[in-house]
């Protein structure tokens, strides 16, 4: 397990937990990131922050601070089932 910020560009991961503060967490969940959602980092802004994610077929940005609190696991490895 790792956090979203450490994930490499182009690698698919699955959300395990969202540890952001309440307000941000609610907003992130409303935008479609919940436990079990598959995410992929598409690009990173100049200076390494924020990041551009592919979520449910659309593009969403998060800052490093928020991405670090989204705990993810490798998706491709478990893709067997």
């Amino acid at each position, binding site marked *: 397990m790792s956090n979203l910020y450490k994930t490499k560009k182009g690698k698919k991961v699955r959300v395990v937990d969202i540890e*952001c503060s309440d307000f*941000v967490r609610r907003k992130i969940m409303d935008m479609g990131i919940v436990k079990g959602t598959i995410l992929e980092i598409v690009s990173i802004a100049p200076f390494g922050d924020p990041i551009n994610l592919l979520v449910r077929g659309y593009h969403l940005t998060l800052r490093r601070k928020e991405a670090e609190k989204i705990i993810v696991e490798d998706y491709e490895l478990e893709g067997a089932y």
Partner: protein
Amino acid sequence: MGINIGLVGNPNSGKTTMFNSLTGSNQYVGNWPGVTIEKKTGKLKGHNDITVTDLPGIYSLSPNSMEEIITRNFLLEDDIDVIINIVDATNLERNLYLTTQILEMDKPVVIALNFLDVLEKRNIKINIDELSKLIGCPVILTSALKSEGLEKLCKITIEVAKKPRNSISLPYTFQTIKALEKIKSLANITNQYYAVRLLDQDEIITKKYKLENNQELKDIIHKYERENDTDSQSAIVEERYRIIEMIVKATVDAKKAKLSTTEKIDKVLINRWLAIPIFLGIMFLVYYISIVSVGELTVQGMEYFFDVIIGENVRSFLLNANVAEWMISLIVDGIIAGVGGVLTFVPQMIILFLFLSLLEDTGYMARVAFIMDSIFRKFGLSGKSFIPMLIGTGCSVPGIMAARTIEDERDRALTIILTPFIPCGAKLPIFALFVGVFFGPLASVSMYLLGIVVVIIAGVILKHTKYFGGERSSFVLELPEYHLPSIKGTLSSVWDRSKAFIIKAGTIIFIASVIIWILQSFSWNMHMVANHEESILASIGKFIAPIFAPLGFGNWEATVAILTSFAAKENVVSTFEILSTGVSLNTYVSTLFTPLSGYAFMAFILLAPPCFASLSTMKKELPSVKLTLFAIGFQFTVAYIIALLIFQGGKLYNQSSALPTILISLIIIVFMALIIKHKVKNRGCSGCYQSNCKHRKE
């Protein structure tokens, strides 16, 4: 019997285009009570008894933002007969999230599945009948851009509106259904939406039913959370998305789908290395075209039109008609000179607004926020603060309103206070005037730089105060698909913005021109004066002028220009235009100012509190009157200090050629010193979310 239709949908779902297509030009724009969020209503084309209300674009009905709260109150409490939910068919999963919430309200709903054209282009197939069956309401395929499917949408909506409908139950899990049943009997309600909100621990709704301290509700929620092994909010959102995934799986066939071009474009436009050079290039082009090349041509043309064609002809016509001389003076020197002086800049403004609208409508503006976020954060602002400031180069009013996308109240307030420091379109004529008299075009550019430098420094300083300090905001922002803007949509938004400017010229500036003419033509005993020095205006100006003496422009003419600039910044030009009877405007200005005091005057006008229209917008958008007063005081102080530094500093150097450069570097040095001093003083932390921080906020 009339029908009220509410138009609800995600941002970027084509809602505004849909509203325009449904209502045509039959629209009324107002505000929601108590807030400045725009409320657009209109009559459905061909049906005078059917009203359509365009609600703000939102992602959910959770109380995350003002827009979301307004929408849900309107849908629940006002007499809306039917809801049209616009869903972006190319982004079904996220769009249906809002739909699942709307469906739980006991109102008839029709889904307009929009972007039919894009769907076909990308070869995605959606089984409409199955979708309609699964979510329990009519689904109509539409393309608002090409006006396809709208007739059918209207017909079905009218039919559905007449039939009452109970809220639908989503296929929740057994535990959720049981918990909701218990809550319904506890609160004595049947409405599924309210029951879900109570389970969700929504503070506003819980208060509404006076259940804040109800132990039974707490027990139900606790039991539910134990069963799901997570908090109730997460459990419900997760379930919604589980249900949506199921619906999408059963109805969407994207096996042969082509990739959207958005990712390809983004590979270049928001590329880590190319993004900033490309952005700077685009900005340079926009300002070069609208202000320097094409812009200047239009300004010259308009000047000729007002001075020669209109002014001279009206004067000779009135002379021939034997009109009294004072009347001719009022009309030609007062009204035509004053209003014309401002209208001269309308074409330039229209070109600028056109570019800004294009950047917004194509989806590039959101990318700009993305690119600039980390830079802006260094100054205590967010990438989202950049959009208000960019729009603020056109006009501060829409700029200030664009700050709404910033969720955090204090960060939003900070952006609102700083946005007027960016030179708006109305200040351009003033710079153009002084540049023409004293400097080369570089001086105009230096005003933009000065504005940006002041925003940065003021941002850093305010961020170190207790009120604005700390980092709270997030950057959860959708990067919408790129799409070609519709000509109609872009033109109408350009017209909306330019209209405000033209109306201002016709009303405020018209009145101000007449008043200035009267005040400068008469003395206190109501005799017409031959010399402006003896006029009422001069005596008022002379009374206040000493305040500005240390800044280099302590003459009454400049003081009067500053006073009139609060009605509208362009008034500076029209005031000088009216006062300059007998000599050309340029000669007149060169007698009032030296290059140094002229530059200080430009800086003061740039940074001083904005016009009344912007101030009243600021008052509405800021959380308190106290903060508004603080903002005005802050802006005035900054303007005064900077102008003082420029004039007194410049006098020391007394070197008019390299002035702007020297002065700006001087300002930067002084403020840097201030910041460093401030930083040392405010080392302490006011609490953050870091887990290892001892002041941690929960």
